[in-house]
């Protein structure tokens, strides 16, 4: 209780500011100061959120989005870490792929949807692959950088003591690059969410992005706000949750990008 009091004394502004905002918003919409058609009251939005959750709509769309993020992230993580490690280890591979990556990486990932839909059967697989593209590059980049920043002395010492092949990889290179790999994975997961929403807006009938876009098209403004809230919640859980997980599971591993 004392601890809570102290915490509140320290953070009262951070706690109070959203509460004040919500109350002012509620009053402003109720009295017509804000147009309720555009800015529905927070209480109305909560009611719609509960209704969407009660009839199962919300879960269905959230599950679809989560499944896509999961597959895309798995795909990007395996390929990104694998190729990133290889690029970190072999200079020729790195020099060969660098210019290719440099051109492809800054292209917004939604644009890959047409390309991907030519390559793989359109539908679910195309959505997942498109979602994975940017995450893949991000993870590969950070992993490469992670391997390259390992102290050469450490590697040489390990080699002198007879570590080769798999042992060198598992006991020196992988642990050395781990902070960077982890940062890359966290950023990659964040990007997967960003891209999946955009891709769902363009070409899906299920998923939170699709629900948001549909709610706009039929002007269900309250549902728009409710969906947005769920997307934001997902973003917060993915980015802050993963950071907390790292702090708990791998406390010795630093997050090189600092805050998300």
């Amino acid at each position, binding site marked *: 209780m004392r601890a809570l009091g102290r915490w509140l004394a320290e*953070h009262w*502004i*951070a706690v109070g*500011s*959203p509460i004040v905002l919500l109350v002012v918003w509620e009053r402003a919409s109720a009295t017509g100061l804000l147009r309720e058609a*555009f800015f529905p009251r927070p209480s109305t939005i909560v009611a719609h959120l509960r209704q969407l959750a009660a009839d199962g709509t919300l879960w269905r769309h959230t599950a679809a989005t989560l499944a896509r993020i999961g597959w895309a992230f798995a795909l990007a993580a395996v390929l990104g870490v694998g190729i990133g490690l290889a690029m970190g280890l072999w200079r020729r591979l790195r*020099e*060969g*792929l*660098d*210019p*290719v990556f*440099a*051109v*492809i*990486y*800054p*292209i*917004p*990932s*939604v*644009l890959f*949807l*047409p*390309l991907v839909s*030519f390559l793989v059967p359109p539908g679910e697989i195309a959505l997942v692959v498109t979602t994975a593209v940017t995450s893949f590059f991000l993870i590969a*980049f*950070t992993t490469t*950088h992670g391997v390259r920043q390992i102290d050469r002395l450490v590697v040489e010492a390990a080699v002198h003591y007879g570590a080769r092949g798999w042992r060198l990889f598992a006991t020196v290179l992988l642990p050395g690059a781990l902070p960077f790999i982890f*940062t*890359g994975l966290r*950023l990659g997961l*964040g990007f997967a*969410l*960003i*891209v999946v*929403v*955009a891709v769902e*807006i*363009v070409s899906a009938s299920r998923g939170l*992005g699709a629900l*948001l*876009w549909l*709610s*706009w098209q039929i*002007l269900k*403004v309250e549902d*728009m706000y409710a969906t*947005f809230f769920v*997307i*934001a919640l997902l*973003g*917060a859980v993915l*980015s*802050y949750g993963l950071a907390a997980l790292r702090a708990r599971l791998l406390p010795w591993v630093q997050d*090189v*990008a*600092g*805050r*998300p």
Partner: protein
Amino acid sequence: MSLAVPAALLALWELCSRLAIISPRYFPPPTTVGWVLVDRVAAGDLGAQSLITLTRLAFAFALAALPGVILGLLMGVARPVRDAVEPYIAFIFPVPKIALLPFLLIILGVGEPAFVLTGATSAFFQIVISTLGGVQTMDPRLLEVGRNYGAHGPRLFWKVILPAALPAIFTGLRLGLGLALVALVAVEFIAAKSGLGHLVYRHWQMLSTPEMYAAFAIVGALGLVLTRGLQALQARVLTWQEDIGRV
């Protein structure tokens, strides 16, 4: 930068497409794309569409840059401001900004202001967070030295805090510009009826693939120029600091 591998990949693509190992309808040979690119640029419409995207980008960036830096600095030096604003920044930052588009569309109507603002918010949050990070991670000894030599208030800010935060601010602006481009092209792809993003979408729908790849190539070149060019500029202007935000 070695160009052997990209050249080899393009040659392989050309060969496979010419020999119909991959469908030339979906993957036209790069030379065909190249000719279409030259053709469209000569006809003027590719340039015009690029200009539309660039104009939107300029407006979005202009809207985001100054307010973002100012808010970031304010949050850095004034604790109450940081406490009051941080919950919103933390809540909105991980959200795909494209999800804001429908809100801006209903409030502002379908049109340029909604498109540009979506790009601007994308950049804004990144700029705020980088700027704040720059102030927060500055060496506290610099502050103490500055104070001991009699710098207070505005002087401390202009002479010590701002220069110390400058590299992070620049990094924020650079990342912000990139994010604004990504958001704008996505917006064009989804909702606008002009710009490079829309061009890719339209030619995808019409299956005029050479034109689609041509627009695609322009977007790639634009992104490359923006990211690499600004990195070079940053290295040149801020020679005394290493880039903090490079990942």
